[in-house]
């Protein structure tokens, strides 16, 4: 899910009425120094990357002068966090902390509505909070049709143990955060820590805003604020993933391919359906096989796109065999995929005598698919005579045979 970088998320918070530290974005050490001078006083220099746990990764540094801020910026720019290069920094005023709180708003699959979580013991990761002191984390289920008003915010936060002047300000911050969560159709808004300063001000010192990719069509203004790496999550795209993304963006229907390259993989998996793809990866793991890809595509007029992506997969140097297919389909026309595969094999010139390629398709379009496969020498077509586990076992043993330098036909399963 697209994660908005902290500087831009904080600007949205500020516009929603939540106080944030004075701060500036910087892309160079000189800009960081300039920002520090403008702030005037000790600052925090934070790497802007789409991952959590930045404190632990050591990419949030304190600086007490423009010189030290410049040094900190030099150190951070050019570093990478979980493979994401640090391209931008947030330089912001260091705030005096009296208390650190945790606040998040996300959807809850149990109540199936927005869930506010709050703790007066913030400033640490949510995982640590849940592990060390789960009772300190309080939950408030919100009826999305009623929303969250000031009175409910106050009574909830009072029950969480917030008192004094900070209570009213924290309630205003919570109300504003909820409004922002709804207005941006976010998946997650986390403010950690929400700081109570020693002058009883409530300031969002750090925040995470994850948007909903499915709702972005309604929010072009938010989409513009996303960074190149915002789609990230765990690492930037590999070259093969970038090429597939380019194909997905070039050939309609757009944005229908989901492709992940798996490090050190050998068997390309091209399996349709979220649940089935997951189960196939499980089955491979159980067998000891090494999947090289997870590739799924939304049903529709997909042949050209499937053809181009299959060529990319066949050209991946480490891939020694492939399994394409799906559960028995009700509606999607499987012959389109098999035709795309046959064309990709022909165009890349991959010798299926040395590269085992199994397709397991049945259901709508199955008979036509079988005929197309028969016209592609070496392509093994399996229908509903096998379960998907059996198809997985077959490609695994064939690839093992190839690795031993034996023909895959020796492993059984020749048509």
């Amino acid at each position, binding site marked *: *899910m697209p994660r908005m970088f902290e500087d831009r998320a904080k600007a949205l918070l500020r516009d929603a009425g939540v106080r944030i530290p004075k701060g500036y974005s910087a892309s160079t050490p000189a800009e960081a120094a300039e920002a520090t001078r403008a702030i005037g006083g000790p600052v925090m220099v934070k790497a802007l990357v789409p*991952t959590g746990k930045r404190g632990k990764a050591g990419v949030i540094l304190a600086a007490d002068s423009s010189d030290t801020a410049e040094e900190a910026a030099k150190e951070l720019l050019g570093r990478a966090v979980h493979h994401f290069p640090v391209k931008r920094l947030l330089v912001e005023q260091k705030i005096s902390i009296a208390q650190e709180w945790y606040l998040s708003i996300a*959807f809850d*699959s*149990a109540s*199936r*509505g*927005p869930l506010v979580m709050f703790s007066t013991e913030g400033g640490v990761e*949510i*995982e640590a909070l*849940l592990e060390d002191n789960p009772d300190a984390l309080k939950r408030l289920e919100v*009826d*999305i*049709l009623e929303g969250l008003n000031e009175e409910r915010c106050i009574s909830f936060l009072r029950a969480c143990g917030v008192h004094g002047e900070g209570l009213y300000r924290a309630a205003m911050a919570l109300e504003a955060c909820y409004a922002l969560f*709804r207005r941006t*159709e976010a*998946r997650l808004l986390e403010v950690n820590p929400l700081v109570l300063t020693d002058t009883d001000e409530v300031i969002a010192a750090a925040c995470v805003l994850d948007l*909903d990719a*499915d*709702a972005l*069509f*309604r929010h072009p203004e938010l989409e513009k604020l996303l960074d190149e790496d915002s789609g990230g*999550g*765990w*690492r930037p795209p590999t070259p093969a993933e970038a090429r597939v993304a380019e194909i997905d963006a070039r050939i309609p229907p757009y944005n229908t391919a989901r492709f*992940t390259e798996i490090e050190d993989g050998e068997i390309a998996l091209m399996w*349709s*359906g*979220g*649940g*089935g*793809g*997951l*189960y196939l*990866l*499980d089955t*491979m*793991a*159980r067998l000891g096989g090494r999947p090289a890809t*997870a590739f799924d595509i*939304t049903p529709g007029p997909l042949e050209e796109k499937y053809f181009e992506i299959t060529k990319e997969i066949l050209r991946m140097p480490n891939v020694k065999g492939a399994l394409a297919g*799906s*559960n*028995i*389909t*009700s*509606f999607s026309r499987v012959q389109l995929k098999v035709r795309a595969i046959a064309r990709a094999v022909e165009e890349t010139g991959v010798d299926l005598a040395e590269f085992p390629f199994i397709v397991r398709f*049945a*259901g*709508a379009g199955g008979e036509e698919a079988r005929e197309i496969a028969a016209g592609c020498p070496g392509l093994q077509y399996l229908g*509903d005579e096998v*379960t*998907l*586990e059996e198809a997985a076992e077959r490609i695994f043993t064939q690839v093992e045979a190839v690795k031993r330098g034996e023909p895959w036909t020796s492993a059984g399963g020749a048509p």
Partner: protein
Amino acid sequence: MSILVDETTRVIVAGITGWQARAHTGFMRAYGTRVVAGVVPGRAGEDCDGVPVYDSFATALEAHPADAAVLFVPAAAAAESAIEAAGAGVGLILVCAEGVPQHDVARMIAHARRAGVRLVGPNSQGVISPGRAKMGGTGGDLPVTNLLFRRGPVGVLSRSGGMGSETCWLLTREGIGQSTYVSVGGDAMVGAPFSELMPLFEDDSETECVVLFGEPGSCAEEDAARLVGEGGFTKPVVAFIAGMVNESAPQGVSFGHAAAIIERGEGSPARKKALLREAGAVVVEDMREIPAAVRDALSAGFSRP
């Protein structure tokens, strides 16, 4: 008997004039489903393959009392259609669209709850009571439907539409039929999770056993385990949970449905399996073991046809 849908269920199809909806409506009717009307804004008065089309649920219901609606409308329009159907008092609303914005999902579920109607989905492939009727896309055309499903004593619930069908097929090829199969939807938030449908199977005299196909993420399997553990469901449960691979994947990476993310230590397949086993369910590690486990569960009183 069966749950949710049978040959007496009167169904309205929203978005009936779309090519996919039109095809599925044809398959549904060929299977025995009573489709009484279609709803497409701006298309009132049209006839779609013999089904009269109305502008809204309210006008359709005036002319054709109905028990259920299946929504073949795009993700962006799904919430408003579902909310309209709930407001008009349609008792069962099946939402097929994938990729509905999460705020919309929460809204449609809240509206259905307030109206006291049942919402299945979103991202549901459909509901089928084999040999009786079906709603949604599951099964497709008649030959495939009959390959996948047959009438019998097993209730099947799945978070994956495709793998739910595959589960039914594994049973059908062993001669074990199903009372009703519900694709509950692949999103983290769905209108009718396992624990809300299992009580219907509990009360269904034809259902003797329930099979669950689970995935990482959400609390659907945990809630099902709690229901069984607390005695709210007393028939045998056979469960399979996909996605062990996600547990060994790097933090933040997930394969499969968007909902299949293990967040904050919750929703892991290992925990789901442990809780289900603790509650007394049979949890199998290979899907091919499902038919044997079901046969064991059915044991007395069940004879292979």
